[in-house]
């Protein structure tokens, strides 16, 4: 039967080995993979400023972006394609809560400049290579 010492070696050996593999892959992802997939060269000042607004206002507490966040409000990865810059600008600069379906967003009343930055951020996010997410709905055409 397995002894306690062997069990300890299994624990230490596995942990060390898989940590090393994980760190090696992470280095590749951080140094090459993510910059390529996200087209880091397109990450302008406006994009970064938009990202700061996204972060400071915790938009992720209602929305998802790249599938991450909360499930209260629409997924925004492809919102730039879906709604276009003008609608998004109207939503973000609105002084009353945006709620065409009855569910309220916070009325941020952003300035034009702030809205432009967030729109640049959404445009950049929409162009990231997400390995096929969000997938086109496979059953859409089966409905008549």
């Amino acid at each position, binding site marked *: 039967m397995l002894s306690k010492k062997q069990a300890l070696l299994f624990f230490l050996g596995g942990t060390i080995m*898989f940590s090393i593999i994980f760190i090696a892959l992470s280095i590749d992802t951080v140094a090459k993979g993510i910059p390529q997939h996200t087209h880091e060269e397109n990450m302008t000042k406006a994009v970064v400023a938009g990202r700061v607004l996204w972060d400071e206002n915790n938009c992720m507490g209602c929305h998802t972006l790249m599938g991450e966040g909360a499930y209260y409000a629409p997924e925004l990865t492809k919102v730039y394609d879906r709604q276009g810059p003008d609608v998004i600008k109207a939503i973000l600069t609105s002084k009353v809560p945006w709620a065409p379906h009855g569910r309220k967003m916070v009325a941020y009343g952003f300035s034009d400049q702030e809205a432009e930055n967030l729109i640049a951020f959404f445009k950049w996010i929409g162009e990231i290579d997400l390995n096929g997410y969000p997938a086109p709905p496979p059953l859409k055409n089966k409905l008549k």
Partner: protein
Amino acid sequence: MKYKTQKVAYWAFALSMLLIILQLTYGFIQAFAHLGYDGLHEWIPFNTSMAVHKNLLVVWILSGFMGAAYYIIPDESDHELIFPKLAYLQLAALAVVGVIAVVGFHFNWWEGRKFLEIPRELDFLVVVDVLLFLFIILGTLWKAKKRTTTAMILSVGLLAAALLYLPGMIWFDNHALDSFFRWWVVHLWVEGVWELIMGGILAYLLIKLTGVDREVIEKWLYVIVGLTFLSGILGTGHHYYYTGAPSYWLIIGGIFSALEPLAFMGMALFALNMYKKGEKRHPNKTAINWTLGTAIVSFAGAGLLGLAHTLPQVNLYTHGTFVTAMHGHLAFWGAYGMLVFAIITYVMPNLTGRKLYNNSLSSYAFWLSLIGMLGMVAAFAAMGVTQVALERRLGMAFMDVQAELKPHFWVLVITASIFTIGILLYVWNFIKFGLPKDEAIGMEDKFQAI
């Protein structure tokens, strides 16, 4: 209890009890907002209730872990805690930082990073507080001559959890990079080092409750935490499928995360077998319920419901839907919520010298919370499946699908009420125990497995 300083544990547990009630309150605010009753929107918009719900969850669980360590480490190492006054200070500081963070969430002071919403300024206070905690725990172990495997696994888990908080504090301009490192905290916590803490606490409880030989229990403990890291480290890849990382994570994350349930299955088999094997029966049956409960429910919630959406082919459609919320609730509750309740249930009679365990209050608390949670998970599952089918497979718009989910939110409110009644009964029993007493020192022998 054996040592006077173990009394600190009581205050950590009391903080947990207070915070879980607040957490559930905000859970109801969220559920009603989903139903269209958002009268609090001006003061508590959904992103505020969400941030409070999740952060209080993490803080009450961490507080429960700290209480567990303050009780277990002196007992296992035969040594009083060093600097007990600092331990009280540390807990008070944790409570203060928690309150500041929660108040801040109501005034748009936070970071939009799921689970890590606490602003960076406060992160530094968290780090100082945790360093203080670790200083007391590791210092006690250092001074004591006896260092058991159980105590070591628990302490290594706590230390590693603190270290892994750091990658979440780095700022990245690139949103995808930020997300990449956010998972180093969130995933490597719950599917990595927290399992070490869970294994340590579970082993301690099994040693106490079943009377099985320590060497046998600790041997299997190594195997289980070995399985955890073998699968869980590379399993992080299941969060990198669709978030801007290279596609090799689809294969690596898929394979290794599919192995993660093995560790949770190990915990469940481990607990059940030790329970069967043990010749002694501890009189605190409710503590046995919670202990076997956490082992089994974590396998269901983390293991099986995790497996349900971890393959990349499935996750492509379930990613970021209520399927995730279904899994998140049962996994967190089974693995870490019930674990904290198990250690509190075991420890309270020893701290206070009062035997309020096999009463109907504590047994209703156990069963109502369990049944309520299973109902909640069923409601989230119904929402998840509906959302995936209508939105992701048929292509209906997000907001149109949300309207279809309302009936399930009513089920959620009803089942969450059952759950909450269970929790309130538990807290009531906790209060009835009263404060820890010095007279309880040495009385533990009376409760020992017979």
